[in-house]
């Protein structure tokens, strides 16, 4: 018997004319790992929220059809009643942390669902250990990096020992080893897992079944092998194909050089004696595990941080794209937001929006955009300044594989005009876009590939 079931489910968000989910029917079996794919805005997150009961209880809107989880009808059972049977991890870990201490945070859900007090601490410790975060137990959540926070959120979900685990891009901030480790753990659970991913290659190796959503409809629901064939035929970008840079770049003048640069946050050394050179015409990917100092190097290169030791030389204008697109939501309209960096020149702003396929959204409020669209808006905000040095920090978070290909093509096309440094955990994207990869090891030595 199915653990969870959606029958002819359609859902419209309040004030929306088009449905976010359109006549969706599917069943989830115990122990099954189901991967949910689709472009940004195709309804993946909404589907996950429907199984958690958050749609319609939390979001309102119009709901048709039926969703059952563990024999509970989500129209009658509130999300809090489903908690424990279902556990969710959402896209942005920073926006789901309730308490200050890591242990208290993991225990929060256990307390809510009425776990016996004497086992709460042990269950919290066990869950932290299972995601490789036991060492974070005594830390404050506000002092953790994005990747560490994501592990804590995953531990909070696993601590509940749910029968259905709903994961919305759970590895978006984890380094490749961390992502592998986590997916290996998820794969070994008895729990049914529904996982939405924009970096699908790793999950595809482990998934039992694959769904593909398009404009709220399921256009594919098939076992892995059949799904791989379908994806190869219809949506090859989702298979993680790599469009390797075609030509050796023509390297021009040096736009940025870091010489023996060190930087510390208080007593914590972030980077130590790093050398890096970036020339006009080349795209360099900076990769490495969580906490290895990638973002610090990116900020040092773009001039947002001054080195404690060593020297940074830059020629021309530098622009930096932060890994949090929420920081690019200052103005009331998308075109005005982009124009902010070019003295209010709306014509240039619209051209930049067109380059990231957001021109139709020029008059929309930036907060009305989805996470993937916000990422593209943020990119337009820095591209419009036409910098000599472009530094992008995790530019593919929440961006679907087809958009990633478009972004790689865009960066490649613009490459001769500037030096580009891309900080990313997305190894497939790094290979697609970069001429050179710089890998940061745990001791911050640079390895050139």
């Amino acid at each position, binding site marked *: 018997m199915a653990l969870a079931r959606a029958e002819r489910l359609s859902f419209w968000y309040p004030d929306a004319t088009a449905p976010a989910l359109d006549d969706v029917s599917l069943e989830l079996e115990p122990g099954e790992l189901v991967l949910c794919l689709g472009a940004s805005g195709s309804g993946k997150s909404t589907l996950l929220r429907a199984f958690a009961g958050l749609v319609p209880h939390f979001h309102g809107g119009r709901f048709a059809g039926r969703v059952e989880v563990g024999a509970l009808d989500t129209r009658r059972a509130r999300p*809090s009643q489903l908690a424990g049977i279902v556990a*969710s991890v959402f896209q942005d870990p920073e926006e789901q942390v309730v308490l200050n201490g890591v242990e*208290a945070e993991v225990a929060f859900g256990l307390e809510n669902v009425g776990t016996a007090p004497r086992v709460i601490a042990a269950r919290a410790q066990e869950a932290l250990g299972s995601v490789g975060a036991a060492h974070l137990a005594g830390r404050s959540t506000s002092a953790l990096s994005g990747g560490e926070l994501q592990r804590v959120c995953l531990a909070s979900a696993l601590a509940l020992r749910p029968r259905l685990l709903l994961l919305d891009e759970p590895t978006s901030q984890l380094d490749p080893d961390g992502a592998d480790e986590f997916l290996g753990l998820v794969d070994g659970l008895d729990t049914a897992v529904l996982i939405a991913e924009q970096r699908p290659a790793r999950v595809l190796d482990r998934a039992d079944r694959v769904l593909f959503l398009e404009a709220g409809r399921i256009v594919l629901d098939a076992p892995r092998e059949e799904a791989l064939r379908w994806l190869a035929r219809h949506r090859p970008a989702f298979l993680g194909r790599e469009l390797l840079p075609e030509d050796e770049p023509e390297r021009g003048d040096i736009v940025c050089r870091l010489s023996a640069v060190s930087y510390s946050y208080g007593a914590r050394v972030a980077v130590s004696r790093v050398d890096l050179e970036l020339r006009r015409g080349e795209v360099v990917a900076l990769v490495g595990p969580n906490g290895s100092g990638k973002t610090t190097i990116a900020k040092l290169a773009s001039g947002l941080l001054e080195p404690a030791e060593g020297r940074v030389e830059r020629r021309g204008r530098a622009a930096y794209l932060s890994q*949090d697109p929420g920081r690019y939501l200052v103005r009331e309209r998308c075109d005005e937001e982009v124009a902010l960096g070019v003295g209010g020149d709306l014509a240039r702003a619209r051209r930049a929006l067109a380059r990231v396929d957001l021109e139709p959204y020029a008059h929309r409020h930036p907060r009305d955009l989805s996470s993937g669209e916000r990422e593209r808006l943020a990119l337009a905000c820095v591209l419009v300044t036409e910098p000599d040095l472009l530094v992008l920090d995790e530019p593919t978070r929440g961006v679907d594989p087809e958009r990633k290909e478009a972004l790689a093509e865009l960066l490649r096309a613009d490459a001769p005009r500037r030096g580009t440094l891309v900080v990313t955990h997305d190894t497939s994207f790094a290979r697609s876009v970069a001429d050179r990869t710089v890998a940061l090891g745990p001791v911050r030595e640079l390895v050139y590939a």
Partner: protein
Amino acid sequence: MSPGPASALLAALATAALLADHIASVAAIAALLLAVCVRAGRRSRPYLLGILVTSGSVFLLTPLVESVGSHVLWTGPIVPVIGALDVTREEVSYAATQALRLASVSLAFAVYALLLDHDRLVRAARFARRSVLAVALATRLVPTLERDAAGMLEALRGRGVTIAGARGYARLASPLLSGSLERGLNLAEAMEARGYGRGGSTRAPRAPWTAIDRIALAASAAIAVGGWLWL
């Protein structure tokens, strides 16, 4: 000290500052709380700045709108509606007391926000746990807004935009507020998905109170009563 008795002590000091009549008593309470607050280091700066601005405003404006006392220190013009802008010694003393009271209450909150373990406070709450959690989440607003503002300024610098002047910074208030509302909504959704609000919740066992905790509770009551009767 456990956070429960510690917050009772802070509440008692704030109450005593409000009830005390003598300016020296209120000043002593404010000084004590300030000494504790600065132990938080750099994190205390936005709180101290806010307290300086609000208490300073109260001190400067109160003599202009009050009309008490006969020892005139300064005679100003007559303003329609408000009347004569005279400043007397009694008004200055009253303004100083009011400003110190406000500073004491604000400093007590700052110490609560900066130095207490809110997780333990939420766990220790025997009743009104929802309210305690709501207050704990609300106290995160200041550091979160500070972090958001720093991030937003950094992102603006990263695209070549420099914010200058009070007007420039004031323009960031609206996006910061809408960002915090959006975050609040997302947090509420995550909390509901984690079972918050359903019946039958439990609590992880908490450490028993020590002798110091009991003394602090008794001292809290004594301070509040003392503030009312003698200070």
